[in-house]
């Protein structure tokens, strides 16, 4: 039964399987544009390459995009399971005694409803809303009905955070946590938490697919994720989307009632989301060429150091980060920089949490566990295209998450307001408005 619910490369199959229940298809197909990868849907011709292949004796084309999951090439087809996928049911496996807020409860009911009817649902929850708990009742119901549940997340650290959390509330359920290098690779469990990449190994396996893409910045939503999700879930299944920042099209579909959605517009601590303020800082790139920073930014840095208040300082590019950190360190040693590929990332994050770093200059949102209480946030060069509406909302979402310190300062230093900045601010304000209307905020 190892093949059940899977699509694997022929080269990965060292075991016998039931021919009756599989279909063998080419993994790389020719199209008008060139090539397409059937496993990951890559059509970017720059991400195909060919080589003299010893296996087929030809110049063989392969997909570079999904190569970390094994090489899809012209001589390496996909073997897809078409037989039945077995199911196991549990009787009310949820062991959790926490309480949901009224907004969470409403969302939780909608999730149950969607799972029961194999429907789609968008859960639009602000950063810090407590969205994982919202899934518990729905997962419980699905597992009781013998359904297979998968939660897909764009990043490994999200999987690593979610899996133990779910294991502790569903102690009797067989689980798989799938990420690069995971022990559970290839497992078909009743409850699965997976990265996008690992999902590429599954085919029509899941009855409930939950996509968690909250806090994804700077990993912009990859079209591969939605493709992998569509292939991995059964044709009749429910699809629950969790996000803090749905894209423009989805937002408008929700407004027009074309897409089923439920919002959690307030945090569990019932205080409004802090709203960003804009501060014009002139042509900072030009200033920086003369090794100077805008005076309002210098002032912001000094103020935080004097008041000893911790802060994130977001910058748009790694190159700039690498220049500006040594510059700032001249004035104060308690300033550090970290970016997504930084090998010392873990140590620096830990030092920041311990309060050994005052200002952390960064290009990324860091692990989700990094909810440092009582911090401020500044975005420098907020007009740069990398700071999309979604990125800015997520960055602002770092502030005021703890009940003890529910407020904080969010500053966008810019050289000309952009649409994205305005939309991000409007987004946050409208969430607060809705929360007030629904009585979810104490003021």
């Amino acid at each position: 039964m190892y093949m059940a619910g899977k699509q694997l490369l022929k080269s990965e199959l060292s075991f016998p399987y039931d021919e009756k229940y599989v279909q063998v298809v080419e993994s790389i197909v020719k199209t008008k544009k060139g090539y397409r990868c059937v496993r990951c849907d890559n059509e970017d011709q720059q991400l195909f390459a060919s080589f003299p292949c010893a296996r087929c004796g030809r110049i063989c084309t392969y997909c570079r995009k999904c190569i970390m999951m094994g090489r899809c090439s012209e001589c390496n087809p996909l073997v897809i399971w078409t037989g039945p996928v077995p199911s196991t049911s549990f009787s009310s496996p949820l062991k959790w005694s926490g309480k949901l807020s009224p907004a969470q409860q409403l969302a939780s009911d909608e999730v149950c409803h969607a799972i029961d009817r194999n429907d789609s649902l968008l859960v639009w929850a602000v950063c810090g809303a407590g969205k994982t708990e919202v899934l518990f009742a729905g997962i419980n119901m699905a597992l009781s009905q013998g359904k297979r549940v998968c939660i897909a997340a764009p990043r490994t650290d999200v999987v690593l955070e979610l899996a133990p959390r779910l294991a502790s509330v569903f102690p009797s359920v067989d689980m798989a946590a799938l990420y690069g290098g995971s022990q559970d690779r290839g497992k078909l469990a009743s409850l699965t938490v997976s990265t996008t990449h690992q999902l590429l190994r599954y085919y029509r396996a899941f009855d409930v697919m939950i996509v968690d893409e909250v806090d994804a910045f700077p990993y912009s939503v990859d079209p591969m994720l939605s493709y992998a999700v569509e292939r991995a879930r059964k044709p009749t299944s429910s699809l629950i989307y969790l996000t803090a920042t749905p894209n423009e099209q989805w937002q408008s579909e929700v407004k027009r009632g074309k897409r089923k959605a439920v919002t959690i517009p307030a945090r569990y601590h019932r205080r409004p989301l802090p709203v960003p303020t804009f501060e014009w800082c002139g042509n900072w790139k030009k200033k920086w060429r003369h090794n100077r920073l805008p005076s309002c930014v210098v002032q912001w840095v000094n103020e935080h150091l004097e008041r000893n208040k911790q802060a994130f300082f977001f910058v748009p590019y790694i190159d700039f980060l690498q220049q500006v950190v040594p510059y700032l360190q001249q004035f104060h040693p308690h300033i550090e920089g970290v970016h997504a590929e930084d090998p010392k990332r873990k140590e620096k994050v830990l030092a920041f949490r311990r309060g050994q770093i005052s200002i952390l200059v960064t290009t990324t949102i860091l692990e989700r566990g990094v909810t440092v209480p009582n911090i401020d946030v500044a975005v420098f060069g907020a007009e740069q295209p990398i700071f999309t509406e979604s990125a800015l909302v997520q960055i602002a979402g770092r502030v005021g998450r703890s009940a003890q310190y529910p407020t904080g300062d969010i500053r966008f230093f810019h050289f000309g307001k952009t649409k994205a900045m305005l939309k991000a601010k409007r987004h946050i304000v409208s969430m607060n408005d809705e929360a007030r209307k629904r009585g979810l905020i104490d003021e």
Partner: protein
Amino acid sequence: MKCLICHDEWMPTMSFAMLLTLRQADVCCPRCRARFIRLEGNRCERCSRLIDQAVCEDCIAWEKRKSVLKQNVSVYMYNDWMKEVMNRFKFRGDYALIEAFRHDVRTVFSKHFSSDVCLVPIPLSPSRLAERGFNQAEAIASLLPLPMIFALRRIDDEKQSKKTRRERFTGRKFCITGENVAEKRIVIVDDIYTTGATVHEAAKLLYDAGARDISSFTLVRS
């Protein structure tokens, strides 16, 4: 353009010098490029190991054992980055990454060797070759415009369990294929030099088959 390694978009700046020499722009972005460390500075003259001695202890030991390998030249240092890139190139089989090494491989090679040498790539076992689809040593050798001789064959199966008792006992990895190497100047090519056991053994076999003046060239020195 898209960086060959991290797939990020970047803008190569065409310098006037590059236009004059028609040198190609780099295939990877400056950030990825900066993470490859070329072996420079104080090294063992025999094996390229970064060390303050002229000849390192390992090489003195090889000399005592009358090794016929004249010297080993390597291009890059083995750091975490190199490990990651090699993993993708070799084990995941992303052949296209070879292009990231082309320029440095050619430059370093021509600095140390004349153009009348023949290249002998370290072979893979047939099962490993079928699995991977290509031999990384041959891919590296193919960056150089020089003749290749497939003079060696693997006799161990690279997987311990499949070795016969005799092979395990003798510990031999290769045999000679019979391709003519007599009186030829040979540079053995491999991906990495660690203890050197592989290339020293290969050198001995080639010497016994009549080759003269045998050196080795590897992408990485660990």
